[in-house]
């Protein structure tokens, strides 16, 4: 079995199923369960940063966890150095979670719930790799912002931030990206978790400056199965969850034309991502989270 693939017969990976996770009320617990389960399924490969093989020292900088300072070197040289192990990249991860109203869509669990699990899991994973973690919750405004740091308690704080997010209001992509560009100067990883109901070209305009500033952007594109293949039996009056606008559509259109349009949009977002050297990961909210984590690790390794 390939790494990251789910196997329902394997008990640990079953925890990665979002429908199972939705029964857990503690997001931190969810993240831990997901990541531990995921990690248990992985081979001890040094390339993912989970080995204890010493690689080098580097100078301590603000934001580094003081617990990682090598006090022996300090006693000899009066300088603070941090030990780096293989797999650690001395990076930071910024989580951008879309909490617009459209993220509240979903039958058994919403896209926002899935996004929270994903974001929490990524944060937990990054924490294990001693990466600095930050989070930004946004919709059409910046709702919460936590700058990336690897200090003690960061993981708990990030997860709390994620946990408190609700799906309301609309989506304004330019605000989080502009704010992020203004506050985070250091190169790192940026994970954007959203359903990306926006104009691909406009999205490119917002994200491209990040890429140019050296940020590595991975876009987790979350969609519910009903958004990908809606199945209605009769003419239905739909209400847009963000704008409240009403539209009446017939089942023939939803069965034939709509899937093509949403696929074209996904393709356009993916193309946009490629156009600015970003990764695009399309996630069905029924998919287990290991695929997302695996994509993240692959992406991190690639950008290390």
């Amino acid at each position: 079995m390939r790494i990251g693939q789910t196997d329902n017969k394997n008990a640990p990976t079953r925890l990665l199923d979002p429908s199972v996770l939705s029964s857990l009320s503690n997001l931190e617990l969810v993240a831990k369960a997901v990541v531990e389960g995921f990690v248990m399924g992985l081979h001890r490969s040094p390339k993912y940063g989970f080995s204890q093989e010493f690689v080098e020292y580097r100078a301590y900088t603000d934001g580094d966890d003081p617990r990682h300072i090598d006090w022996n070197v300090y006693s000899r040289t009066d300088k603070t150095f941090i030990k780096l192990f293989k797999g650690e990249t001395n990076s930071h991860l910024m989580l951008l979670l879309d909490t617009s109203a459209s993220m509240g869509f979903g039958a058994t669990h919403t896209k926002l719930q899935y996004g929270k699990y994903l974001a929490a899991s990524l944060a937990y994973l990054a924490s294990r790799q001693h990466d600095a973690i930050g989070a930004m919750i946004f919709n059409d405004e910046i709702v919460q912002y936590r700058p990336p740091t690897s200090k003690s308690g960061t993981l708990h704080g990030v997860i709390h931030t994620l946990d408190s997010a609700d799906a309301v209001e609309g989506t304004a992509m330019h605000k989080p990206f502009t704010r992020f560009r203004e506050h985070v100067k250091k190169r790192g990883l940026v994970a954007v978790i959203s359903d990306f109901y926006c104009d691909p070209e406009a999205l490119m305009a917002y994200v491209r400056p990040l890429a140019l500033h050296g940020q590595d952007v991975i876009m987790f594109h979350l969609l519910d199965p009903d958004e990908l293949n809606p199945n209605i039996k009769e003419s239905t009056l739909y209400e847009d969850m963000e704008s409240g606008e009403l539209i009446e559509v017939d089942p023939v259109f939803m069965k034939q034309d709509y899937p093509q349009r949403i696929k074209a949009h996904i393709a356009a977002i993916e193309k946009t991502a490629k156009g600015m050297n970003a990764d695009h990961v399309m996630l069905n909210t029924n998919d287990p989270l290991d695929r997302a984590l695996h994509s993240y690790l692959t992406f991190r390794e690639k950008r290390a």
Partner: protein
Amino acid sequence: MSLLSPLFLFALLGIALPIWLHRLQTNATEREKFSSIMFMEQSQRRIHIQRKLKYLILMALRILFLVLLVLAFTKPVFFVAPEGAVTEDTTHHIIVIDTSFSMREGDSFDQAIRLAEGLADDLGADDIASLYTASGSVETIGTATADPALIRGGLRDLEADYGRLDIGAMVSALDSLITSSQANFIIHFISDFQQSGQAMRFADMIPDVINGRPVSLSIHPVKAEDVPNWSVASVEITTVDSVRVGIKNNSAADQSAEKTLSLSINDIEQQSLTETFAAPADGISYLTFENVLFEEGDNRLDVSASPSDGLLEDDTRHTVFDNSPPAPVILLSSDLESLAVTYITTALETAPRGYEVELQNINDFDPRILQRYPWIVVDDIGAINDSLASELQSYVEAGGAILAAVGERALGQANIPVGEQTIGGGLTFSRTTSYNIQRVNSAHPVLDGSVGWNNLAISRVLPIEVDNTNNVLINLNDNIPFLIERNIGLGRFLLLNTDLNNTWSDLPVKPVFVSFIAEAARHLSNEELLVKEQTINSFLQLGQSGGASGQVYDPSGDSLLSLADTTQAQSIQLSETGYYRIVTLGRDILVAVNPDPRESDLSIMDAQALQNWETMVAGSTGNMELVNGVAVNLAEEEPVAIEIWRVLLILLAVIVISESSLGNRYLRFNIGTT
């Protein structure tokens, strides 16, 4: 609206069922939330809206079905006022237009129509009006209405006729035509107010009042002063070749006028005479046409005066002169040489009408010729045999008439042939004691005006016993009938209880016998019923045909009787001026009809009398018995209850069909989009 079974209204709670099913039990959400509609496209058909509409209509239909079903069980009834119903505040204008003959003078009738139109236009918001015409009779034109256009429509076809208006009769007729009502009444009377139309008693012109409803009278004269008018008042045939014509000055002042009188007989002008007539007020001047030639039978005499005045139609008078030869009559006798034959023949031939007696021997008589004669005479009823008696009875039953006497041949018989009166036992005969006339029914046409019966010497009679089917016209002492009439079928049987040979009594040689025979002939031939000169709107008696069927033609030549009426109608009304023609078997009779001469008098009622009349009616308000209360069509009647459950059932059927159709479409929509 009222409900006869209102308890069923509790069943209306049942409408909660469709409401619950449609609004609470439905899983259908009105709208569905979706993350983003940016990739969706509006459906070309607003199916959702249509469907929702259908859904609501379906629910409404089901609720309506239950409501109507419940209502049908509650037996709803509508109480509607009768058509033309009036209220306490309604004023009912009764517009009466005089359409009598005098209104044909000049523009009187046009003026009356204009006045009526003005009244119609002046109707108030709460007012209604009904239109009546008054002439020989009072007639309603249409129904009571508040619409002036309908009144005008009713006026459009009116015209003055040839009848006579009697105001007292008109008020009486209004009494019967108008019944009680809640309305206040104003009687508008539009007329020329002829003095001759005034009732004999002024009180007859005052309408009564019922229920204390106010009634007032409004008088609308069409002219303000008398109009001189001459009319041809009479045409008399004084001798066999002269005609005397009377021309009347119908005004309240002495008048003279030069008039040319023309005499036409059977539409051929015979003579014209011009003369200046001078006549006092309401007086007649005469002029005689000499050497006039008449045709045999009925002659139509038309006398016209020219130049004409305002009232054209009374300048011509129609008269019929019967120039027929003596009418034939059969005298049946067993002895054609007897004295009885002589006496009867003499009496008939000297009667004013003149009869040609055809003697027939009873033994040789062929009864088939009976139908040619309206009546016959039998000198001794006892002489006829049973066979002839049967034939004569059939003849009488069919409308014929027989004048019969008893005689020697009747002695010893039990019954009088044909008449079937019983003859009692013994012969009443006395040479020493004569019988006296005890009672004469002088009201009977046969005995009308005749005198001398009490002077008869009667020595012998038959002891005839009569029942109540016989009318004893003359009684002797001891209650012995002397003259008996019995109606048999359509005919008459007149029996004298004496012989006519001057043996049993001296009647045949008395003067009363001649007048009796003449009157009996007129009576039995029905000539008395036929007056050949009549006034318009009078009735013509149709009994003169002797039982034979006949037809009547009006002055236009149109037949008036249906086939059944030719034998059954007893009389017809003469509603046109001119000549009516009565055609029966072997007879052709003319009847002249003229306007009522009283209508030719155009003198109007005194203005003070009119004002008094108006005042008296208005003054009677609330005091007298409601007369004229309310028009029939405005009757203060109980509201009419109209049950509407049948209508509800029809609506229910329509709703069931609609619901089924709509429900089927609703389901078909769901299936089609699955």
